[in-house]
């Protein structure tokens, strides 16, 4: 058991809580628009960003954000064509990005490199520099999400209705994809490439049965995510297991309880 509060524990806690709040509304929209696969693809493209950052010797968070945003732009561009469903493009990009990322990092740093930190996150290794990214980036993403919220909800609810009422769905979709890419890139530090979408979606799943409006769903998702971060970090420190998976597992437990309660109520 580690003495409380060590600075690295405090940093992990603050970064986790900030990202929990930022990611919750985005996670709700991902759920509504059935975009989990898009998110996974953006996340796995981030590994290439890690490789580029190492090769060019720049800040890894910055290179990961750039890689994720580039992947989002490619997806937006692919989304314009109607020949192939986006799913098939994602199926290709998703695995290609992961494979290329692993190969590129191994070539650069040799087989001894530990990929675990990138794949599952290393929340207790969050540095002061990372904190700046989390707080500033998080505040920007949250502000943009709030500004776009109404049009995002309307496009998610019924795209044609929103279009007929004067919203450009491509604009709000594109903006959302980029916000999602930035959030995934920053959250990767905490829960890793393979678990980052769970960090976004699971709190939204837990919130769905408890919410009556889209706004309440986002707020409840944020609360669930914060409980998940605190509970997960506590579990991780107590049992001495990795932090990212502990956070996600705590969130999943909350979601299962919420869904089971909803199931028994509707019977």
């Amino acid at each position, binding site marked *: 058991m580690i003495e409380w509060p060590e600075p690295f524990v405090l940093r992990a806690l603050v970064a986790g809580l900030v990202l929990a709040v930022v990611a919750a509304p985005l996670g709700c929209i991902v*759920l509504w628009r059935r975009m989990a696969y898009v998110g996974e693809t953006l996340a796995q493209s981030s590994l290439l960003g890690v490789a580029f950052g190492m090769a060019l010797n720049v800040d890894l968070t910055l290179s990961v954000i750039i890689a994720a945003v580039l992947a989002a732009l490619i997806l937006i561009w692919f989304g314009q064509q109607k020949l192939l469903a986006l799913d098939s493009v994602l199926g290709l990009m998703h695995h290609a990005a992961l494979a290329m990322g692993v190969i590129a990092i191994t070539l650069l740093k040799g087989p001894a490199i530990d990929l675990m930190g990138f794949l599952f996150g290393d929340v207790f290794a969050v540095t002061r520099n990372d904190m700046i990214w989390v707080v500033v980036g998080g505040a920007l993403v949250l502000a943009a999400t709030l500004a776009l919220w*109404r049009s995002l909800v*309307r496009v998610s*609810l*019924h795209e044609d209705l*929103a*279009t007929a009422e004067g919203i450009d769905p491509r604009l709000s979709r594109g903006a959302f994809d980029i916000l999602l890419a930035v959030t995934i890139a920053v959250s990767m530090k905490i829960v890793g490439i393979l678990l980052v979408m769970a960090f976004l979606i699971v709190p939204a799943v837990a919130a*769905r049965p408890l919410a009556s*409006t*889209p706004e309440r769903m986002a707020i409840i998702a944020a609360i669930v995510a914060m409980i998940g971060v605190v509970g997960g970090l506590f579990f991780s420190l107590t049992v001495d297991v990795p932090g990212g998976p502990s956070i996600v597992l705590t969130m999943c437990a909350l979601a299962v309880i919420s869904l089971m309660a909803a199931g028994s109520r509707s019977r």
Partner: protein
Amino acid sequence: MRQPAQSLTPSSSAFRRYVILPAETVTATLEQSVSHADRPVGSPGQSHAHDHGAACGCGQAHSTAVDRTALMSARGLWFTRHRRDLIAGIDLDVHAREIVTLIGPNGAGKTTLVKLMLGIEKPDRGELYRPTSTLIGYVPQRFDIERAIPMTVARFLALGHGASDDEIAAALAEVGAARTVDQQLSQLSGGETQRVLIARALLRRPNLLVLDEPARGVDYVGEADLYDLIGSLRDNRGLGVLLVSHDLHVVMAKSDRVICINGHVCCSGKPEAVAKHAEYARLFGPRAAGALAVYTHHHDHQHDLSGAPSPVTQTSGLDVDGRSST
């Protein structure tokens, strides 16, 4: 006041692009683009069964310029996807206080036509006149609403237009759905959902209401009630109404014009009032018979499997497009 019109003309290159023309040049360009010489499938036996009065809504050669007295007017709309002409040279006008009903078989392009008229899709060719003074209230097909989003009726109505609680209550009362205000959208019945969607459209203070299959999944009594409501909105508010019907033969009795489309305009005309018809009243009850009408129409052409029109053959006893066995 003269409104600028957007004219969509084919360009000489392989690409289709939009050319915005000043209003004066529109007519001349149109005569080129809508001339029947470029109709891809010839149909020698195709005659044209109704007289060509003004605003007959038919897509044939007499079309000239858009009708600037209309709330919405289209001339020679074409929309082609995957080498299929989903919309092939359709003209359509909707005026104030007028109810226009679109019917046609599945895949006839009804929803596509509505999307073109609303600007959700852009036509490949043709001219669309929609002045800025036309405010459209759109009622989409109800089953398209994403159910994963928690949404009360009150929040749904406030979303977008920033309507106050009083305005929301008034709109719901006008459509007869006042008690749904705190319910979830996903818990409403088919008829209630339609009324809520109409209330939302009314909050925009439209002068044109566009409804895509409002009576789908609603029983006959509910359908008659909905048509009563739409008719009273026209009467009380002076709205123009463009309505897509899911039923080929039963339409709203108050329709001023019924237009049957199958890619192109097959036929159009007034619905026959059948309220007096004893057999019909017996079948659906006097309430329903007041609001619904049977649209009897006989087609002078039929469609082969590719959808191209061809003359009616002697062996075919069917008068419904697309079901003939050529």
